[in-house]
């Protein structure tokens, strides 16, 4: 998000990355709950916080639409979406392929869960049972009737260990979609249902077309449930972001950062190394968006550390050498685990700061899960913080470079 926004703002932008991180593994849904409050706590300006969140969401939706992977939703209204575990998740922005499954938009529904033989990541029978149970005990506001069936997937030779990406790729072919619909219709009278709930495999590259064929041929709203890793919608989101970056002219380098040069409180150059190529970059501003542990933005060995610039790592507002490591984890798995709030502390312009509050490098900013003080898994905040902080960092870079320049 930061790179796309920076490029859109007219800044020459280069993205250095080693590979895909948590985004490609995610459901693809973006949670916005509590993001404005979180931002207000940093920028100390309520109006600006709201304005930034609005602008970030609008830009994100625009980027996704332009990248041919349209999203829907808003920061103000929550969506309740079914996931592949048979529970529901409250979120705010989701791909169009998931939107018909928003249980907030329906008082009652008759859901038919369609599973695939040999594809164990989507257990249609269990999901049907579970959603009916959640409805009966009031955990979802809609009254749900559910049923399930399993089909043999067309054009696969084997009937076990089918994987999401293999199926999604096959569904990019419209003929396969039609054959799949035929098999569903052979097994069920679709007039009995209001919606079709499908595994999150509706095409790797052509999900919009797959969804359109499904809805057209079945005359029912169809949706993918939210995915667990390995996640086709997560990969779609990542690839859509890549397309958005390229569209805005971002140069993408697949390499790891191995070093940097700093002087007078500024980062002067970055050394990145791919297999056989070394890059020496001399940016005017740097945005660190390396994620939490999955992305490698924060590491824990004998201590918590930020591996590229060796920036101080905080948990909430506490500098981690002052926080006992034992205090970062509790005995109950589902409780808050403070280690997942570990990251960088930033000032109101998203510059990482030292334990005494001083900006460390005046042309370095940080965005996303690498930031301290929020647990994007447990919330509040969620992945929306990545969208908003990325957006804001790009804006700060533009402001700094447009006026006095971040560094002399």
């Amino acid at each position: 998000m930061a790179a796309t926004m920076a490029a859109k703002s007219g800044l020459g932008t280069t993205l250095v990355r080693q590979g895909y991180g948590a985004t490609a593994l995610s459901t693809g849904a973006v949670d916005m709950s509590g993001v404005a409050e979180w931002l207000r706590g940093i920028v100390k300006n309520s109006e600006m916080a709201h304005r930034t969140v609005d602008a970030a969401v609008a830009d994100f939706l625009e980027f996704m639409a332009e990248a041919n992977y349209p999203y829907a939703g808003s920061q103000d209204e929550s969506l309740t979406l079914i996931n592949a575990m048979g529970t529901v998740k409250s979120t705010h922005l989701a791909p169009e392929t998931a939107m018909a499954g928003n249980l907030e938009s329906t008082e009652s529904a008759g859901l038919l869960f369609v599973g695939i033989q040999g594809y164990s990541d989507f257990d249609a029978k269990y999901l049907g049972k579970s959603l009916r149970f959640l409805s009966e005990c009031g955990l979802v506001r809609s009254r749900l009737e559910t049923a399930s069936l399993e089909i043999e997937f067309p054009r696969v030779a084997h009937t076990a260990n089918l994987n999401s990406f293999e199926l999604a790729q096959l569904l990019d072919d419209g003929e396969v979609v039609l054959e799949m619909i035929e098999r569903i219709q052979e097994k069920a009278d679709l007039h009995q249902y209001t919606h079709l709930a499908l595994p999150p495999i509706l095409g790797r590259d052509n999900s919009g077309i797959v969804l359109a064929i499904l809805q057209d041929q079945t005359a029912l709203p169809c949706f993918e449930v939210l995915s667990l890793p390995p996640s086709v919608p997560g990969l779609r989101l990542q690839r859509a972001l890549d397309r958005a970056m390229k569209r805005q002219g971002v140069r993408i380098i697949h390499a790891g950062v191995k070093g940097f040069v700093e002087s007078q409180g500024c980062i002067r150059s970055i050394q990145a190394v791919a297999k056989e190529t070394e890059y020496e970059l001399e940016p005017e501003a740097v945005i660190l968006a390396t994620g939490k542990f999955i992305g490698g933005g924060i590491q824990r060995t004998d201590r918590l550390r930020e591996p590229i610039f060796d920036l101080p790592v905080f948990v909430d507002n506490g500098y981690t050498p002052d926080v006992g490591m034992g205090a970062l984890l509790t005995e109950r798995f589902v409780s808050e685990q403070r280690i997942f709030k570990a990251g960088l502390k930033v000032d109101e312009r998203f510059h990482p700061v030292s334990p005494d509050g001083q900006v460390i490098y005046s042309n370095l900013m940080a965005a996303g899960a690498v930031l301290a003080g929020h647990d994007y898994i447990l919330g509040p905040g969620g992945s929306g913080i990545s969208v908003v902080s990325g957006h804001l960092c790009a804006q700060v870079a533009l402001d700094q470079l447009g006026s006095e320049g971040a560094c002399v």
Partner: protein
Amino acid sequence: MSCDEYEVIVIGGGITGAGIARDCAMRGLKTLLLEKKDFSAGTTGTCMGMLHGGVRYMATEPEVTKLSCIESGIIQRLAPHLIFRIPWIMPLFAGGTAALKGFASAIAQYDELGKFKNSKSHVVLSAEEARALEPSLSPNIEGAVTMDEPGVDVFRLVIANVISAAEHGADIRTHARATAILRDDNQVYGVQITDTLTGEVEEYHATYVVNAAGPWTPQVATLARVPFKLRPTKGIHIIFDRRITSTAVSGAGASLLPHENTSICGLTDKFFFLDPDEVRSSREEVEYLLSAMEKAIPSIREARVIRTMAGVRPLLDQPGTDERKLTRHYKVHDHEELDGVRGFLTIAGGKMVIYRIMAEDMTNLICQKLGRAEPCRTKEEPLPGGEEQVDPAALADGFGVPLHTVTRIVYRHGSRATRILEMCREEPQYKSHVCVCEPVTEAEIRYAITREWARTLDDLRRRTRLGMGPCQGCHCTKVAAGVLVDERDEPAKRGHQEVSDFLQERWKGREPVLVGTQLRQEELLRACYVGVGGYHNPALEKVSQR
């Protein structure tokens, strides 16, 4: 409340209790085996699984070592499919070569016992030879001694005994916690249990109640209102994500053993007088083991630790004795003689490898008291799966299941692997891997549920190694929950309970070792079950409660 009559009720589904139930059933006694949680859920499931004599006991308890070697050979014959063999390297550190001379006699005696456990004699290696065999060894070693040692899949050894007991007529109850020992004056006549999954209370009557509850033995004795003391010690292991050595290696007070797809490093030995249900590994103990192994394998800290396991040894009470010197002998206690309470017997102490002879001694006593003369046959009759050898490659070919999957099924089930493969033939989608790390098929999961008393995800873990690989259940937990609910025809609520319970149970072992790559994995697992699944949601927790 139901009430059934038995000649023997055995309390405790560890290796000792399972062995006693098998022996009793094979001698025609009407037997009930009760386990408060699941088979091997206590001490047995946290041991390394080595079927060795323990060379370190040669100096202090040579008779225990000899017995262990004899019994090792018997187990190898009864269940050949569950056995693995491994060279065990004991590096010699500074001064070790000279010190070795002092142990020459003990080692020679241990070699002599090797005939019982089918082991080759020890070999003294130079430092170069040792490192050629195991390149990760420290450059500072003076040399090494190797032993040839057998080991066993201990979870499967227990379930094989239970299956055998059941096939000889024993009744089996798991998740059946003894809540009272029924006693009339000085006569124990039965057990009241509570099913911990359903809350149902039941009573079973028996002529003899056997307390084989391992570290919970004193608690069970208290229910019978008789005093009983142990000298329990705690041991922990850390588990790595892969086989980081090709041989077993001893360090300075710890050992590293490649096992299945992992490596296990243990073992600590400290007195533990708290509730055995509360035993957990600490960061300090993890650090102790890493430091102890580091001397032999300097790169050990670069390896990825995925979890820990902790258990309590139910050792015999020897007041004033140091932890490391406590006896590994066992005792069969007749409380009629000790306390004047009839119908109540206790067995305590011992080692996993001698479980069969422990069971034989206990069953001999019961038979003597009942006036029964049936001889023990547990060392002749193979355990289920050990009846004949099968060829994994031929089975893989015949059933169209990948060889690496069939090899694991054969290792766990021996000749009975065909029963699982038949399920794959009838329902081809059952070939799908529920657990990709290990790998465990849907057929094996369903088999464990229908034929091996698995009622929870944690039971399935012990039967099949579900969730024991590097991803620690990230993928398989929710898949297995769906299969469990389907096979047992239970409501979805049970699936959510199982997911929650399994996540919590596994967390206990991971929490002390979350660093490096495993912390990355933890973020992913947490994102799935908390971020997406919402298992932290109190409303979901509330409606899913038992």
